[in-house]
């Protein structure tokens, strides 16, 4: 499935310290076009910090993050100018927050939320923006009649869908997700996971999903990385890691999952 022979994201030796303590301590990995990578680990293992560092939201103290751009080949994202980095972040990338309110503008309508990236890129035709927004609401299985409603009136699951639509409207090639389904009840979670799985496949999105929920990783990810204390302790194909964990910590993690 990898028609491209170069990784879309190459992370080398990323270190991020908070004071003297390293929250992420020398993490390297590669992500290929269309691949979904899950980063799992307990709270405080550094997975969210790693996500922020590789998504150019927090400059790491050491290491390199190289992204394969559409036209200019691989670039070091922290060597880009701030303007170029922000442009990249709102065109070729998406970022789905755990709390949808952080990723949405809660005081403007759903349609404006989805259209914001288009307008930021210079689209100045109201009719086209609205049509595109409606189209994306449909694709995330939302009721198009709610295009003018404020996200304040939406349930948690709908807000999360809206956040996903808002990110995908520019057809990014790489999406970062920070616990996209935690905080939702299980039935809503299941439908959202289903949607995410079909969207990543249809759009051949590369994605990094940070989660503490191994079931989410199992459903969505091709490959997973297990983190503990800021380091990667195990990495491999999702099924392989979950069915035959090698590292003691991974074994503990897998055996801690409750079976209903």
């Amino acid at each position, binding site marked *: 499935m990898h028609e491209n022979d170069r990784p879309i994201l190459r992370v080398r030796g990323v270190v991020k310290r908070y004071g003297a303590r390293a929250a992420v301590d020398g993490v390297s990995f590669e992500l290929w076009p269309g691949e979904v990578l899950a980063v799992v680990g307990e709270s405080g293992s550094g997975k969210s910090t790693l996500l922020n560092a590789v998504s150019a939201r927090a400059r790491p103290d050491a290491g390199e993050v190289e992204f394969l751009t559409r036209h200019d080949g691989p670039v070091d994202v922290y060597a880009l100018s701030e303007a170029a980095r922000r442009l990249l972040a709102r065109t070729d990338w998406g970022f789905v927050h755990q709390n949808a309110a952080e990723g949405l*503008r809660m005081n*403007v309508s759903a*349609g404006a939320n989805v259209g*914001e990236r288009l*307008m930021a*890129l210079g689209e100045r035709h*109201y009719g086209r*923006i609205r049509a595109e927004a409606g189209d994306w609401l449909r694709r995330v299985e939302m009721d198009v009649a709610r295009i003018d409603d404020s996200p304040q009136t939406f349930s948690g699951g709908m807000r999360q869908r809206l956040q996903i639509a808002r990110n995908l409207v520019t057809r990014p090639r790489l999406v970062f997700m920070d616990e996209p389904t935690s905080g939702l009840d299980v039935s809503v979670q299941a439908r959202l996971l289903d949607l995410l799985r079909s969207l990543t496949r249809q759009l051949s999105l590369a994605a990094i999903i940070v989660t503490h929920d191994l079931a989410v990783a199992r459903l969505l990810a091709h490959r997973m990385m297990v983190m503990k204390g800021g380091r990667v302790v195990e990495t491999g194909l999702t099924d392989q890691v979950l069915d035959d964990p090698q590292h003691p910590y991974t074994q503990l993690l897998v055996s801690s999952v409750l079976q209903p």
Partner: protein
Amino acid sequence: MNPTDLPAAVERDANFNFGYLDERTKRMIRRAILKAVAIPGYQVPFGSREMPLPYGWGTGGIQVTASVIGPQDVLKVIDQGADDTVNAVSIRRFFQRTTGVAVTERTVEATLIQTRHRIPETPLAEGQVIVYQVPVPEPLQRLEPRETETRRMHGLAEYGLMHVKLYEDIARYGHVATTYDYPVMVDGRYLMAPSPIPKFDNPKLHMNPALQLFGAGREKRIYAVPPWTSVESLAFEDHPFEVQRWSQPCALCGSTQSFLDEVIVDDRGGRMFVCSDTDWCRQRRPADA
């Protein structure tokens, strides 16, 4: 009323420094103004002083006026287009008392005009300076409350968010419902709040021969549009910028090109539309009216 029938002349009070502000403050503000003129539409921070009137009454405009006014200036002060409203009368008297300059109600006679909420209908000329009182200098403030973020957006010219606001208006009301303080793009670079002038006045900002200065006292910002600078009102291709129109002319002077105020004349629903710019209206009426 005869246009020269101004309220009894106010004597200059020698106990005040010329223009009320001390010389170092004026120098600081003039520096901010020079920077603002050099970067059209850019909000220059300045050390706004306490003024003898509350914020929101024109403290920013007064400080700018006090810093650029000279003894030879002829001052006009308007509030909502009128020369005889409380704000205008008070500020005019303030400058008469602290500078002793000549004052006028005629737009053409004035060299310096301080205004709240309007641009005079009479076209301004080269050499004139117009000072706007600004309550909220940051056009993005309602949409993005973090100032660190709005400053970065100005720095990188990321103004998509302003169109989100216009989108929201159209989605909700079917048209752009913003009728005053309508956001503009200055010289193709900086997004600017034109102060709460009606959008009817926005086209007058564009390529205006006068120097336009904006002072926000509470927010401590000064910005400017130099003469002959392009000022474009934001819009969508399929929802172009439009100004207000009235179905009737001014009831007093018959003007069809001016901004009209609706005035209720009795308690039986009687109303009339009259020019908001009192000087414009008076100049157009026969002398005996």
